[in-house]
């Protein structure tokens, strides 16, 4: 027996598509691993974005055809990519000078937790048996002009990811300005989380029930 599971809110692709609408033409953009990678598929017609991948490529293009990949042309997720016309390769210290030096306009990261003050936790659960691995997320948080999060609103177990205070180890403090979830687009304001937009078919109470911090309504 098959059961139709009703989709409430946006799919991963729709979340990525929604975020892509908000990136200005000509931006230099770094996309994190996971849902953030999907954003590149949905750049609106007429806009050109330059993608940076911290392992040393500016002007990253789409994945190659199956079997066409070059093991020495990869992204930060270690997947095969291509280089667009106008691309450039560089070493790691230059790459992180672009990041830390404020030259990248926008970074989109996944999250384990985001706090109402814009703190991000996305690298470790702090569990004693986990292998700590941080990569470039802390540098991205510290240096990129705007850092957005794209994530499911709750964990697979239904726990809120948007919380008053992160309980997992932090990646950055007060760095997140906007969160795109399946249920809403939410701004991080000095007063806390504020709904910028509810996903189609989702109402405020539904989102507030699944958020671990007070949510200021859109029109407040």
């Amino acid at each position, binding site marked *: 027996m098959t059961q139709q599971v009703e989709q409430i809110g946006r799919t991963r692709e729709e979340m990525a598509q929604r975020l892509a609408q908000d990136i200005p033409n000509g931006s230099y953009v770094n996309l994190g691993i996971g849902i953030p990678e999907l954003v590149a598929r949905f750049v609106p017609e007429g806009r050109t974005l330059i993608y940076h991948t*911290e392992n040393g490529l500016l002007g990253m293009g789409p994945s190659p055809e199956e079997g066409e990949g070059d093991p020495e042309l990869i992204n930060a997720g270690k997947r095969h990519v291509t280089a667009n016309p106008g691309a450039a390769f560089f070493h790691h210290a230059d790459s*992180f000078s672009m990041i830390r030096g404020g030259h990248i306009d926008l970074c989109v990261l996944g999250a384990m937790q985001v706090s109402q003050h814009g703190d991000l936790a996305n690298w470790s659960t702090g569990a004693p048996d986990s*292998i700590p691995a941080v990569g470039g997320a802390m540098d991205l948080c510290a*240096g990129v002009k705007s850092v957005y999060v794209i994530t499911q609103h709750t964990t697979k177990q239904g726990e809120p990811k948007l919380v008053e205070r992160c309980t997992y180890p932090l990646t950055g403090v007060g760095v997140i300005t906007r969160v795109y979830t399946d249920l809403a687009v939410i701004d991080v304001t000095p007063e806390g989380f504020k709904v910028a937009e509810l996903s189609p078919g989702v109402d405020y109470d539904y989102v507030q029930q699944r958020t671990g911090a007070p949510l200021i309504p859109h029109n407040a």
Partner: protein
Amino acid sequence: MINKQVSSPAEALADVFDGAVVMVSGFGEAGSPIELIHALIDQGARELTVVSNNCGSGEVGLAALLKAGRVRKVVCSFPRTANSTVFPDLYHSGKIELELVPQGTLAERIRAGGAGIPAFYTPAAVGTPLAEGKESRDFDGKTYLMERGLKADFALIKGKAADNHGNVIYNKTARNFGPIMAMGSKTAIVQVEEVVSAGEIDPEVVVSPGIFVDRVVEVAQPAHESELVAAGVSYP
């Protein structure tokens, strides 16, 4: 006459000593000098400190060096991989020390070490567990952490081509840590697909100037880590 070419990976690595600090280039498999790493396993040096972005995959390359029990400590930004249990097993059994460093801080520490800068301040990791025990200082109203430059006794690097003066060019995103590790090490050893005569690489395209490179060794057809792992290879 200058000639930095040596005849084999074994010759290039002959003087690596027990307890040495060894930088290893690569981001995942891109730029990982597998043939040099395998030659280092054969050479036998122990109690090494390895500085590298990752800890290898499967049981080849860096993961094989770890599995052989030659490494006392890794300085690394992302030791976790989907297809290797070598590092997790060593880490959980307390047989290896991990110094976890944000990737940009790792790169800048290596660059600084090679550039004669003993320490610098960075905004990365402020307010996180990785800031614990570090000096901090405010500049222009913002807090920064002090980080030390990193130096190594040896660097094992993968390039695309070199001339006999040690000028090196790289291939695409395999460049990653190579140029800064060449700067940050006393003895930089670079494996390349082709060693050419001085003058054959256009000075305008040289990425690592020869002053940073001590030995170049030709490995005409380097293996790719993913292919070895897919074939189930375990080194040695």
